């Protein structure tokens, strides 16, 4: 072969190699997400698992009937239209036409019915979803696209359940062995389920036949991302660094203490959103001393400064939660913030009044307190699952007041055991939901029993009445008004110690575009996401 021809051959080979490499580089649009290991789903089947992360991951594999958009309104998912009857007992949905599951099965009203029936079936042992779907009396279908769900009692929260409930292919549900993930997780969503290496990662790949017709997608058709890999990280220090090392291009969620590594750095974007709910509240045991006395309870609130704790511990990154609902909750009562401004003097006076006087060494002891032997020190246990550092700041703040706040970190089983035995003073209890019904869960004395979430032992018929009404009212504004009344009563009686609210921080590197957070920090959308190098 002549020199010239050889040169031509080599340059040809070289250019082919170059094109191939560029081609593959362009083709690789893989999103790698780091999630904390505590977020790992249990069975990955949103019908069974009661975990937000399960529903979130399911939403990548299958579209729901309705979607809660980033601005907090419900927009069409696989249902184009819906309505509820005036008595709250009949829900009607109009479904989209022409959508199929990953396995080719058609998406229709029968498919939805099969899913709903599976959720409420006893064999499924659905922990949460069955509760959220509610006591369905009957389901009717009308052709491919008409669906009616009928209840015996009004059920106003169906949309919140349905936006999370995954819809799987009925063929898959019928034939899959229980526990065989890949067989069940056949949905209508933008990504197909590939593999789940437990405690390690979940991999999804793009479904090329995705219709992309829900209201969240900016354009129809398959999405931009080639694949999504979710890696579960066991150690928070590693979570803080793993974005910087380039091992992942998204961190969900970033521990707040590591955010200064990324803030102000143009290579990364940080998004922060709160979650509506109760915040990291500490409920009080009003059944026995010392917290059976409202003066002591009020003194605790007056003596603690959450804003200072926020600055000291989290550089101000955590969010305010001044009452039984946190400040970003749609039904938050503003009065919570003003009722107990930090006031050590007033707190001291209340304690003196209540019979807890300053003894030797500066700590308070009982003197003439009913049911308490004179000389008993004022010790209050602060029992929590995590975020004990907040308690530690409070401990330092309360010491000058003469209160001995004892911090104890307890695991889940111990927390529930202590609650059942009513053996606690301050107990961590967090609920996360934009619905004010969480107030009913926590403060309605009807739920003061095993399995219930009302732990304080406080019973007030007026409060109970308001909370019960919450369930019956449909109108959002009316519900919020009722919720505010409830919060006022709770605050006036000083039944809980507000602390802070934990935001969700998401870190993205500059290559990730089109990522959208949900209405709350605990949701996001990838339909419009892409990776630009």
């Amino acid at each position, binding site marked *: 072969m002549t020199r010239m021809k050889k040169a031509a051959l080599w340059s040809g080979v070289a250019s082919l190699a170059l094109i191939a490499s560029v081609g593959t580089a362009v083709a690789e649009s893989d999103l790698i997400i780091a999630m904390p290991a505590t977020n790992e789903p249990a069975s990955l089947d949103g019908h069974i698992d009661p975990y937000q992360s399960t529903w979130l991951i399911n939403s990548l594999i299958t579209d729901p009937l309705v979607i809660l958009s980033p601005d907090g309104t419900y927009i069409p998912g696989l249902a184009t239209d819906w309505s509820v009857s005036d008595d709250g007992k009949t829900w009607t949905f109009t479904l989209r036409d022409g959508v199929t599951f990953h396995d080719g099965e058609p998406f229709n009203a029968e498919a939805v019915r099969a899913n709903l029936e599976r959720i409420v079936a006893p064999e499924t042992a659905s922990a949460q979803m069955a*509760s959220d779907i509610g006591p369905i009396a009957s389901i009717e279908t009308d052709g491919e696209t008409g669906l009616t769900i009928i209840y015996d009692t009004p059920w106003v929260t169906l949309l919140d*359940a349905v936006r999370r409930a995954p819809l799987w292919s009925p063929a898959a549900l019928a034939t899959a062995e229980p526990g065989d993930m890949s067989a069940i997780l056949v949905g209508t969503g933008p990504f197909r389920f590939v593999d789940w290496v*437990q405690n390690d990662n979940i991999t999804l790949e793009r479904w090329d036949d995705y219709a992309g017709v829900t209201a969240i997608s900016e354009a129809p058709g398959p999405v931009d991302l080639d694949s999504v890999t979710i890696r579960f990280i066991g*150690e928070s220090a590693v979570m803080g660094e793993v974005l910087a090392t380039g091992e992942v291009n998204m961190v969900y969620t970033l521990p707040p203490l590591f955010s200064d590594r990324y803030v102000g750095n143009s290579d990364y974007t940080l998004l922060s959103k709160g979650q509506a709910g109760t915040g990291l509240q500490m409920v009080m045991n009003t059944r026995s001393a010392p917290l059976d006395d409202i003066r002591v309870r009020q003194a605790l609130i007056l003596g603690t400064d959450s804003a200072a704790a926020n600055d000291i511990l989290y550089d101000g990154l955590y969010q305010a939660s001044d009452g039984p609902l946190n400040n970003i909750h749609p039904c938050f009562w503003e009065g919570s913030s003003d009722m107990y401004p930090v006031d050590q003097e007033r707190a001291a006076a209340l304690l003196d009044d209540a019979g807890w006087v300053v003894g030797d060494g500066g700590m308070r002891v009982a003197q003439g307190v009913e049911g308490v032997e004179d000389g008993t020190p004022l010790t209050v246990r602060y029992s929590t699952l995590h975020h004990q550092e907040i308690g530690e700041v409070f401990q330092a703040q309360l010491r000058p007041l003469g209160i001995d706040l004892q911090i104890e970190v307890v695991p889940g*089983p111990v927390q529930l*055991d202590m609650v059942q035995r009513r053996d606690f003073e301050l107990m961590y209890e967090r609920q996360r939901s934009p619905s004010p019904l969480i107030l009913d869960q926590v403060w309605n004395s009807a739920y003061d029993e095993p399995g219930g979430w009302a732990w304080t032992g406080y019973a007030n018929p007026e409060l109970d009445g308001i909370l019960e009404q919450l369930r019956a009212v449909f109108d959002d504004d009316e519900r919020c008004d009722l919720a505010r009344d409830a919060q006022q009563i709770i605050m006036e009686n000083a039944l809980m110690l507000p602390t802070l609210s934990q935001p969700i921080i998401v870190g993205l590197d500059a290559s990730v575009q089109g990522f959208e957070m949900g209405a709350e920090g605990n949701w996001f959308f990838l339909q419009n996401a892409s990776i630009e190098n």
Partner: protein
Amino acid sequence: MRRYVLGRLLQLIPVLFLVSLIVFAVMRLLPGDPALLMLSGAEGGAITPERLNELREQMGLNEPLAAQYLNFVLGALQGDLGSSIRFQVPVIDLILDRFGSTFELAVAGLFLAIAIGMPLGMIAAARQGGWIDSLCMTLSYIGSSMPVYWLGLLLVLVFSFTLHWFPSAGGGSFEALILPAFTLGLLSAGVLARLIRSSMLEVATEDYMRTARAKGLFPRLIIFRHGLKNAMIPVLTMIGLQFGALLAGTVVTETVFSRPGLGRLIVDSILSKDYPLVQGAILFLAVVYLLVNLAVDLAYALLDPRIRYGN
């Protein structure tokens, strides 16, 4: 010898019975209810107590304790360890899935422990009293005193975040095994080094070592052929124990390095009171540990001809 092995294997059965009984009892005595625990992490709407009871019924938690235990034992004898409450998947599948990773980590850790600890101890013994001896023993003390969690994080910080030599999380690849293996191995290495050193020093004072010197054998021959085999006898016990400890104690390393493994599985399942999973996994570990012990005992017979079983 065959009869001896058979006898030892049969002995497993009463031991396993006892283990299963203890685990069953302890798990029932600990506070917490699996159904309640499952729901307490939940973020949906309110759970009514009726719903809770329904769930407990569905999970089989309302049956009398004796029936639950009997079901478990009968199932276990047939190789069926039941289904996990939390994962809804057969327990044996979960265990086997994670065990590979834990076993891999324990073996790698043990390998490093021997590869680092043995030479360290032998050099220290050979240079007894000198600065090398002091250096080796200092290293071994440091190695065996470091908390696993701290060492793991330190290794991640240096070799992963700063130098980018190894991944910081995950369990799939060989590279991902190196840092966790070192975390476990360095600790064991420290323990082994000290033991090998003292064992070799003891052996050095034995008469047969003097005979070997009197025969004019090369020093290396004396150490390796005459000394090492004898010195290894107590060390073998320690290796067996260390391996058992590694198998059971990988949970911290698995958490720091985000590796799947049996350790994490067990801890998580204890916290969520997943009875079948805890029972099955602990029983499994007990079997593995007993088999490792048996292997160690049989290895003695290989090392020391004075020990022969069954005759």
